[in-house]
């Protein structure tokens, strides 16, 4: 295999990995603190993508507006998440996990069709911002600037997130909540506000990543299901609720996918689920997670 091909695949794998990290980190965050697996996270991602497209579409006469659109998408989905959490989800805390899972699944159904209703079923796409259009030559391959941007952004967000988690007051609260919710409430911390905040942040991340993916992938119905499954797998590999686990899990998954397809074209589908099954059987808490209490 020529070195340039290896390099290309590696870069492509990293790009996928960073996207997944953005998305999966939101999922892992919510699970780590609130013990809820949010199936609708992929739907938030999809809504973010559509919102970004919508904003770009509206502002088209004025000029390119990618960054504004991405921000708007993140905020819009954050708002959506906040409303859902406040009005509906909070009534299901402390109730059997099955009901929480089913609730988020109901959201998937509803949001999926709502998106179809508003934006139709045609593929939509958004162009990369002018500053990041085009590519540069590295090692004999052309790497899209936008991909490089994503690869850089990922670790940046990871480090920022890590600092927030470990250094800030809010971060300490979150980590404490992950260990013992009841204790936290007893100490007077407003657990309700914390949960809403976490959910809003997670939704923002989902919406933002949806917007950011649009120059690379078309927006289609079904992207919600596709992404949530992959985010799931990443979180399982890395370990539920583990921050760095999600990061490395994304990298591993992204690269395995990228190289696997070269070797076995039918690789992705079966092997991805097989990988998830193997991890769950051998080490359900993933590489970095903790065994569930």
């Amino acid at each position, binding site marked *: 295999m020529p070195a340039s091909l290896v390099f290309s695949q590696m870069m492509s794998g990293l790009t996928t990995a960073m996207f997944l990290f953005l998305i999966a980190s939101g999922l892992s965050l919510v699970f780590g603190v609130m013990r809820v697996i949010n199936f609708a996270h992929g739907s938030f991602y999809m809504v973010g993508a559509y919102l970004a497209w919508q904003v770009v579409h509206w502002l088209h006469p004025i000029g390119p507006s990618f960054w504004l659109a991405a921000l708007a998408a993140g905020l819009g989905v954050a708002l959506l998440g906040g409303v859902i959490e406040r009005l509906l989800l909070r009534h299901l805390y402390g*109730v059997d996990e*099955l009901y929480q899972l*089913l609730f988020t699944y109901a959201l998937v159904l509803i949001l999926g*069709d709502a998106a*179809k209703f508003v934006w139709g079923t045609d593929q939509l796409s958004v162009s990369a911002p002018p500053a990041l259009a085009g590519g540069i030559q590295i090692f004999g391959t052309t790497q899209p600037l936008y991909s490089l941007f994503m690869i850089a952004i990922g670790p940046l967000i990871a480090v920022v997130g890590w600092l927030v988690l470990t250094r800030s007051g809010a971060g300490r609260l979150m980590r404490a909540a992950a260990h013992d919710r009841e204790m936290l409430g007893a100490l007077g911390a407003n657990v309700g506000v914390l949960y809403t905040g976490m959910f809003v942040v997670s939704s923002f991340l989902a919406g933002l990543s949806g917007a950011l993916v649009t120059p690379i992938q078309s927006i289609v119905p079904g992207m919600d299901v596709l992404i949530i499954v992959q985010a799931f797998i990443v979180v399982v590999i890395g370990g539920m609720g583990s921050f760095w686990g999600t990061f490395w899990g994304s990298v591993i998954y992204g690269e395995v996918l990228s190289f696997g397809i070269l070797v076995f074209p039918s690789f992705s589908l079966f092997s991805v*689920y097989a990988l998830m*099954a193997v991890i769950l059987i051998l080490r*359900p808490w993933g590489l970095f997670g903790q065994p569930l*209490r």
Partner: protein
Amino acid sequence: MSERRAISAPTGEGVIPGKPPASAAVVRPRLARGVPWILIVFLIALTLPWVGSRYDTFLGTQIVIDALFAVSLNLLLGTTGLVSFGHVAYFGVGAYVCGILMKTYGVPFALAFPAAGLGAALFALVSGYFCVRLTRLYFAMLTLAFSQIVWAIAYKWNSVTGGDQGIPEIPYPHLDWMSAIPGLADLGISQRFYLLTLVIVAISFAVIRRIIRSPFGRMLTTVRDNPERAAFIGVNVRAYELAAFVIAGGFAGLAGALYGIFSRGVFADYVFWSKSAEVIIMTILGGINYFWGPPIGALVLVWLNQQITDYTQYWPFVLGVLLLVLLFLFPGGIAGGLAAGWRYLKSRRAPRRA
């Protein structure tokens, strides 16, 4: 303390804590004794080919098959407290086994059908062995993973499963012998198949019901209510869960086999994870706390589907809203609601007896 908890609250129907129990002493509703209600329903169902149109019989077949699928799931959900997100895997294995045997190898239905059940049960044994070792969240995810593996194999293994083309044109079983039964000679093949399905499913229900009411079934409910306690009355929790998993998987396989013939083909998207969610919704809709809950759920959901899809393509939206309503307002489902209504009526009548 173990992560497992019972699916439903100790009393009343469903789970939202803070809701007061339905009454101090919960009496299981019994319709008037001595009247064989089930038998009556069965006989009525038998008359469908004559009383209804061909389309009604078509719907009826689908309802009956879905009812079996849902009842098999409820053996896990309502009786044992196991939440499986991948139950459709066994449905699919059954469908493919029966379909492949009948279409590709010309095996008669009488052999292919039980083979489907056995194949599904076997797969349930292997996958279940790994699943029951995990606590409930991970259990649910592993069942999902296995189910998607089945889907991925079905989708890609062109030589055996037909890949994304599936296995079309599965033949009906030979039902000419039915002409010998008085009154049946005039029926078309699909109507005869409906009757055959009805009888098979009725027998399956009888068997499953028997199992649930047996000492084995009693052990399953102890696992559901309190696995820790169950272990300490001598119940090997994992072994019982695995047994329930295998039985449920086997019957799901039978349902799948019937479905393959009914829809004249077996396709990979039968096994996609959304189908597992549909059957869960169907079961909860009907009511997980009663044996006849899931069949009621099947009836209502199939009927609802027919009504809605005439007007709009947004069936998933309706399904989602329905699920939300169930979760927040009626966790006990239809059967739960009926039972609560029954108790209410009985309590109104009681003073007169005194």
